[in-house]
């Protein structure tokens, strides 16, 4: 309906392979970005930012990471929590060890550290097909949270075992620490996430992404046309871990400010992120955002309606949430394995063809 594509012809492969080849899409995306950057910070209140937007962004980053592994390369990880914890710890150690270091650099390094840790668990499990990675990452989940909990060095010997982000500035604006304003932290997160989302998009639409998808769709054929399954999967896994690590760092330093890793990044986080990509859409960057939003918002809505609205016990609401998520996962996998992103796409197609049905 809104699309007017006649006359949008492409005279170069560059234009033809752009992320948003259709003009109307570019407008729309531009609008959204404008909103996120120029409007939201001024209209959204503290709660909005702290409880919904910042977490959504942070988790979207994690979801992108897991999506790269699961959605694009067809491997499953249950250790997302553990790797986020790794990112958080790395970030903490670096922040405290090098007070002068730029926060972005610290995030990058945290990501790299996490990728390295990921390799340790990926190498033994990715050589063979099947669910071994799932188990290996489960191992990572339990082992790592144990490690950060038991070895005091990681938390700088803090008796409580919690790590707290010291205040840091970016371009003179305070973005971490208790006194950083929600707006500042939101903007910073937004910048980081947009940046990495763009990078992820570039990865998956290029040769690297094709290699991953080839392995996902039919590893035998992929190997026979010259892809190395092990290396390809390993690459996907380390990139994935990198993203998850950065997400962990952001969660810790910018969103929560101070965490007890074993608590904040337990196995349920792993499942949460997994649900984000299943509901949001396997193999879709957009889906990672939609999924994150969905998984963050649903519990809030449930609590508001059930607990505040119907005066139900919080714990029961939690259980209902379990059932809802579990059910949704099954329903989505059956009805629309490509999740919200796919629904979005279908809607878009309909608009493009309007008024014709096909």
């Amino acid at each position: 309906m809104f699309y007017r594509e006649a006359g949008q012809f492409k005279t170069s492969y560059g234009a033809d392979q752009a992320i948003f080849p259709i003009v109307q899409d570019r407008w729309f995306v531009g609008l959204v970005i404008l909103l996120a950057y120029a409007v939201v910070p001024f209209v959204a209140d503290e709660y909005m930012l702290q409880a919904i937007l910042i977490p959504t962004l942070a988790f979207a980053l994690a979801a992108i990471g897991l999506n790269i592994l699961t959605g694009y390369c067809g491997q499953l990880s249950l250790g997302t929590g553990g790797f986020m914890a790794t990112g958080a710890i790395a970030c903490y150690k670096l922040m405290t060890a090098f007070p002068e270091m730029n926060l972005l650099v610290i995030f990058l390094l945290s990501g790299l550290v996490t990728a390295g840790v990921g390799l340790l668990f990926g190498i033994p499990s990715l050589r063979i097909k099947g669910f071994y990675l799932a188990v290996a990452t489960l191992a990572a989940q339990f082992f790592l949270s144990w490690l950060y909990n038991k070895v005091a060095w990681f938390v700088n010997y803090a008796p409580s075992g919690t790590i707290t982000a010291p205040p840091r500035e970016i371009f003179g604006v305070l973005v971490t620490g208790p006194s950083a304003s929600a707006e500042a932290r939101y903007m910073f997160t937004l910048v980081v996430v947009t940046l990495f989302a763009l990078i992820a998009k570039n990865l998956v639409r290029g040769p690297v992404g094709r290699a991953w998808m080839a392995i996902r769709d039919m590893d035998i054929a992929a190997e026979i046309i010259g892809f190395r399954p092990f290396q390809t999967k390993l690459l996907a896994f380390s990139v994935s871990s990198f993203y998850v690590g950065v997400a962990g760092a952001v969660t810790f330093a910018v969103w929560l400010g101070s965490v007890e890793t074993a608590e904040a990044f337990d196995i349920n986080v792993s499942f949460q992120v997994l649900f984000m990509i299943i509901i949001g859409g396997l193999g879709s960057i957009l889906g990672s955002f939609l999924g994150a939003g969905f998984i963050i918002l649903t519990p809030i809505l449930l609590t508001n309606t059930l607990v505040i609205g119907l005066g139900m016990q919080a714990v029961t609401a939690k259980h209902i949430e379990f059932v809802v998520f579990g059910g949704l996962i099954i329903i989505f996998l059956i009805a629309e394995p490509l999740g919200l992103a796919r629904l979005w796409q279908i809607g878009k197609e309909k608009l493009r063809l309007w008024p014709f049905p096909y």
Partner: protein
Amino acid sequence: MAAVAQHKGREVAAGEVLLNVENISLSFGAVQALIDVSFDIRKGEIRAIIGPNGAGKTSMLNVVNGFYHPRHGQIVYKGRVRQQMRPHEAAAQGISRTFQNVALFRGMTTLDNIMTGRNLKMNRWKANLLPAALYVGWTRSEEMKQRAFVERIIDFLEIEAIRKTPVGRLPYGLQKRVELGRALAAEPELLLLDEPMAGMNIEEKQDMCRFILDVNDEFGTTIALIEHDMGVVMDISDRVVVLDHGVKIADGTPDQVKNNRDVIDAYLGVSHD
């Protein structure tokens, strides 16, 4: 088919041997898939491998491109002996193939599927992680270069109309064509086709024949193909090797093979016990 007529006109490629299969034996547990099979494939020829079901044809291809590893015997490719080799190494040496039941990447478009075929031709570093992440300069230009090449294949196979369609939605015949395209994208020296015309109607078969001949003709690609349709085999192949129950029972020009006693038996299903 005019093309075929022309083709039959030309003399059988007398070129030097490209690939030599020497006394290959292969077995899965108790099952003897291949027993002491030997034959050669000459540069620039179209070599057919035929035989009744379960004759071990596909296993033969799997051995050639390193997917299975023979128990005995060896493969000599371009004069170099090799026993153990992973499929992707075979690919790197210019052997590509298609599969009996289409093995495309269903999630991707026709274009992307064929692009994957270019991966070995891509500049390793330019297509590498970091530049790819930024998708600027090198990767971009590299990507465009490959796209241009792939478009030539799309044009060659006359599949412009389905360029951006996810292959999952394509009819079987077209999928086979796309798969051929993916194999061609690697600019192979040796192209292995596993029943390229299985389950096609007459027109589709004729098209496929034309494409196979054109490939062999325009790019000088050596082709080894498994095919059930005798008519097709006799039409397009220079030499035929016949397998039955894992044993080679005949080898020669189509006409020689056609009149071979064992072959006739094998096809009429005379029992071998």
